[in-house]
């Protein structure tokens, strides 16, 4: 398990287009990705509905967990995910 953190900078927050793109990337990943606010339970990142229920706005920090030990693969996906929630 590899865990990373990032901050949402996209204005609308994690719903609509950012949430769609975020979940699509998670869906295509070869291992499970979960996401949540720090300290709160993580939800499956491949579910746009679960992402919506995080109620994550611009400026909120997200914890993203990658169910793998492959640092390179996790980093690559992390960058793609961050791009969807960045301005």
């Amino acid at each position, binding site marked *: 398990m590899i865990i990373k953190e990032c901050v949402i*900078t*996209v*204005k*609308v*927050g994690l*719903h*609509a*287009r950012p*949430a*769609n793109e975020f*979940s*699509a990337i998670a869906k295509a990943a070869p291992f499970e990705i979960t996401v949540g606010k720090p300290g709160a339970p993580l939800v*499956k990142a*491949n*579910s*746009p*509905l*679960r992402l*919506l*229920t995080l*109620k994550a*706005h*611009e*400026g909120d920090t997200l914890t993203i967990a990658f169910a793998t030990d492959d640092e390179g693969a996790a980093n690559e996906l992390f960058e793609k995910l961050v*791009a969807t929630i960045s*301005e």
Partner: protein
Amino acid sequence: MESVRTLEGIGVGNRAVRAEVLRWSARKSLPAMAKSSLGVEVEVNALSMAIANLENQYAAKIKAADNRELQEILEAQCAFATDPELADMAKDFCEQGWDASSGLQLAMSEFKSLLEGAGGEFSERVADLDEIVYRLIQWMSGESDETVLPTSGKFIIVADDLTPMDTIAFNDVVVGVVTKGGGPTSHTAIVCRSRGIPAVVACAGADELVNGQMVVIDPDASQVIINGVLEDSTGDWWAGRSSHGAPVIQVMANVGSVADATKVQGADGVGLLRTELFFLDHKIAPTRAQQVKIYEQVLAAGPDGEIIVRTLDAGSDKPIAFLGLGREENPALGVRGQRVAAISPQFFEDQLHAIKAAADSVRATGKKIEVSVMAPMIATVEEAEQFSKAARAAGFTRVGIMIEIPAITQVIAQLKGVVDFLSIGTNDLSQYLFAADRVNSGVAALLNPWQPALLSLLQSIAIDSAKVGIKVGVCGEAASDPLLAVVMAGLGINSVSASPSSVAAVLDLLSRVDASAAREAANSARSANTPRDAKAAAKAALIEFL
């Protein structure tokens, strides 16, 4: 004979129509919760099939949608509908003995309860969830999940409000639309205007209309006439009057995409070429070379003549990914339009140079265009000077600004030598003049472009501009109303720019009046006390002349 009554609203379009009312099915209530009598497997199977079916429907509609905004809304809804978490949770409920439709409702209400207190745009998503559950359950119950539109006949669709999914389904039998909600710039109004469907929106009395009733929609008078006949309407009343040939002022077209540009017919140039649509899809700022290609396409597809390109009008209400605009409490009063140039100067410099390069290369192909640029959301002379300097440095000889903020209307004399023309955006000017949010249907009546205060302001802008020799045009939605375009001519406005679908009607009426008749209509309208009286007065004055 049944009694004739009228309902007030806000008209969209000019042409009056008479047809039968067809209520856009007020959504039937969902079936009562029930335990399954068919077994888990049957219920789970029904659920999977319903979801697969809805996914196919969305795919077809996304493909058929004619603008990117609509596509994005549909894509987001489709992603919710096909979310495995929804299906899994609904299946869990089926395994507890519930039928498929109950399982779905229970699953969705769980998601909805998780969204409580989210606020703002998040809570708007609840409506998307409701729509998905409704469509899935309709399909499972064997009913069509769409309101069935007849395949023949002519109908006026009456609804509380319409979703993007609804408006996509409209076919040729829809000749008019009445909605209880919405406003002049709402989604429904925009779709109806672009498709040439007459409509009355924000019609509080719409509940009174029942299926089968014959009504006249008279957008020109902003009313619905129950049991009326077409002769009661005011739309196109000038048809058959003689034409003078040339319009009394220049008529241009508004263009926002290559598709729009190809639709323009009869217009003398483009009074507003919006550039927002070209950037909505970009995560990073397009390079100059990429931009040049985009502008070349739209300039080549559009009409000859004067083409006024507006630099990017973005803001947190019209977000563009690469500009890095933050969330704002009041987007309409925040960093938008030319104000964004202060934080992304490089983008705006690139845009000006790209427009100039595209203009030069399209002119080199022999197309007779004169391209100028204007900036949106200018509040001060200083802002106008900065923009003018940047535009002239990029090689433009004619530079203008939009008049949308009341402050700039007070210093027009000082714009002499700074800009060559002004273009009034009536939608935003009304919003700021009347302190009435464009996206709040509760204040839509204040945004009626026939408000006498707005007309008086247009006149004072025209007078002040004429004194210093600056041309002034109107490019807001209001200029798509032929009668209002005549009033604008009478107020001293030099040109109007209308949506491509309205150009012919605007051109038609402007070609039947002369300057003194237009002035007469303008004076009558300006001195009225209500938008309704203003329109009636303008019409009365013109009828006398025609």
